[in-house]
């Protein structure tokens, strides 16, 4: 039975060399050469500074920006390491609330957020946390609920803001797959009229 030791060790070594080193490195170098934007994390650069990733949501709180969904992420309190504090859209981590459908904490949180959106018939994505805590998108309905607030803060006509929202609303692929959505960071960049360039590694 010891005769099996050599194939076992050799095959582990070969698998590691092939699938653990050669292929990942090949993908890394070829990816960065051919598809640098995607391979590097779809980073958006403005005036030479990385302002975020097109795929990762950000924590918007001021009235002049559209807001993303609530994020369930928490981190260590910098002032007191024994406590945790909310760290919405902190992309050095990821995760969900994991609150049960019958959780009182969930209902209390949602009831508070529902008020901010008018109190009834609120689109579900506006008051629920995503799976990743980094969801870059909201539904067109949730965007529409924020148009008046953003227009007022920017002294713009609501119709003009809605037009920008519409231009950044993506439909289902082939009219079938996925859901209608608005990328919040891209929408807010468009509102700011920013010039966007692609990050180079």
């Amino acid at each position, binding site marked *: 039975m010891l005769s099996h030791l050599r194939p076992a060790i050799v095959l582990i070594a*070969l*698998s590691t060399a092939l699938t653990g*080193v050669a292929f990942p490195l090949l993908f890394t170098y070829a990816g960065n050469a051919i598809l640098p934007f995607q391979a590097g994390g779809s980073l958006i650069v403005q005036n030479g500074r990385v302002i975020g990733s097109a*795929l990762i949501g950000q924590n918007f709180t001021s009235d002049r920006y559209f807001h993303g969904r609530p994020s369930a992420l928490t981190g260590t309190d910098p002032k007191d390491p024994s406590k945790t504090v909310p760290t919405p859209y902190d992309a050095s*981590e990821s995760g969900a609330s*994991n609150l049960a459908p019958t959780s009182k904490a969930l209902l209390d949180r949602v009831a508070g957020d529902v008020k901010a959106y008018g109190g009834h018939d609120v689109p*579900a994505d506006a008051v*629920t946390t995503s*799976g990743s805590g980094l969801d870059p998108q909201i539904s067109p309905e949730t965007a529409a609920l924020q148009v008046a607030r953003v227009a007022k803060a920017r002294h713009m006509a609501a119709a003009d803001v809605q037009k920008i929202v519409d231009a950044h609303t993506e439909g289902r692929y082939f009219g079938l797959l996925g859901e209608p959505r608005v990328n919040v960071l891209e929408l*807010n960049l468009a509102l700011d009229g920013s010039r966007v360039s692609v990050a180079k590694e």
Partner: protein
Amino acid sequence: MTWNGSAQIALVLTLVFVSAFPVGRYMAVVFEGRRTWLSPALAPVERGFYALAGVDPQRGMGWKEYAFALILINALHFLLLYAILRLQYYLPWNPQGIAGMSPRLAFNTGASFVTNTNWQAYSPESQISYGAQMLGLTVHNYLSAATGIAAGVAVVRAFAAGGLRTLGNFWADLTRCTLYLLLPIGTVAAILLLVSGVPETLAAYAQASPLDGGSQTIALGPVAFQEAIKELGTNGGGFFNANAAHPFENPTALSNVLENWLLLLIPFSLAIMLGHMVREPKQGRALFAVMAVLLTLGVFGAYAAEAGGNPLLAHAGVSPAMGNMEGKEVRFGVALSSLFNVSATGTSTGAVDSFTDSYLPLGGLVPMFLMQLGEATPGGVGSGLYTIVVFALLSVFVAGLMVGRTPEYLGKKVQAREIKLAMLAVLILTLFILCGASLSLSLPSGLSSLANAGPHGLSEMLYGWTSATENNGSAMAGLSADTPLLDYGLGAAMIFGRFAFMIPVLAIAGSLAAKPKLPPSAGTFPTTGALFVGLMIGVILILGGLQFMPADALGPLAEHFAMLAGKTY
């Protein structure tokens, strides 16, 4: 439920079902050692592997030798991963300076990846370096998948002819599976994922200056290549904590469809492969039908529950139109999310693109119940195939009892020894799940791991033990799993669930292989056609149901009725 949602689900399932036929045929060619269209490029590589390893691919192994070789390489590979995780601080590609893992978490993670479970008791962003992801986890994704498929193929060979003394050469099966099946599909899929936005970089985490002020650190890594095999090999361990809900693992609905297709492809193809290897494609199609019916029912069951939304939230003023969106991503919506999570628990993948802990009680019951059915609908790569063969043996036995015929399956007489081993394999896992979950729920250290109160807390613990023992790896992720009790307990459950099932099944295969292959006679109960498919579905549901319904009634079912009554915890 909407027409659009149902159509999305139907489209993805159809894509899987259609592609399983050519892939299953191709796999039969690969594992019979015949030439494939990739041979001109890969045969020299394959010969090189054998030369270096000192392997004669033609030399067959009896079931004991096959099992020994399989356990040996897995044991060595487990030790290597344990070492990598403990020492990752000193290994290359660690730009974040991530420290070595604690011994108990490294044990749990090692057990998790060597058994194809890929349970995550750790947070990858802060606890696993790029180097450990590549050298450790990616390699295990490949090898544990190939191990499972090899065992499945060995079981099929037992039915291919009469009077066999061997089940094939384990080293050759492992090598051919990796080179001809996993690497080619994995590579093409990784390219598509990269194009859709999945990163592949060794650069440190990006520092961003968000529009609305503050700062944002963005975790990156060599994700695309690992993501592809994570789904294709029904592994399921996420590069990131949020698994396939993370936009970097799964950026669009299209990448989601691709990943969903990948994780279902090989388990369904293996049923078709069985048909070709026993020279009776109908037999493979019957097993395929059993898998397809149960999975489809599960998907639509979960989708129906989730699409209805949470009545408690509706009462608070949330529109039910989008369904239950807590823990789900906007780009996937309720339909693709339900499909993904049910696919990943019907197989032993355990990846998630939405968080099961926040599913409605019945929506979360479906993934748990599919695991409790024994991971055969369609199950993990290889493990699903040998599990459904066990159910086929039990079904012919039950049919034989009912109509007084000698039980035979694929021309092999099924006798007391095989049925005893099959029942042992099935019951031993149930025992482990129910005892583990009950024990953890009676210990203060187990109860302190629960994130939610009430019946949902019981669901979390039951789900965890089910997932680990059945080698699935998905979680009701609120459960704090990095505790001494659960690190060691669930780690042991994963190893036990993998090998205490696989070895009796290989023993069955060894015993059946030696028997003569009987031609079908008038007394043979046909194992193709709707009658047998229906019988098998009945056996699987009744066996799983009888074993787990009492426990499930205390968790998800109790929570469902509490929710309808407006009760919260």
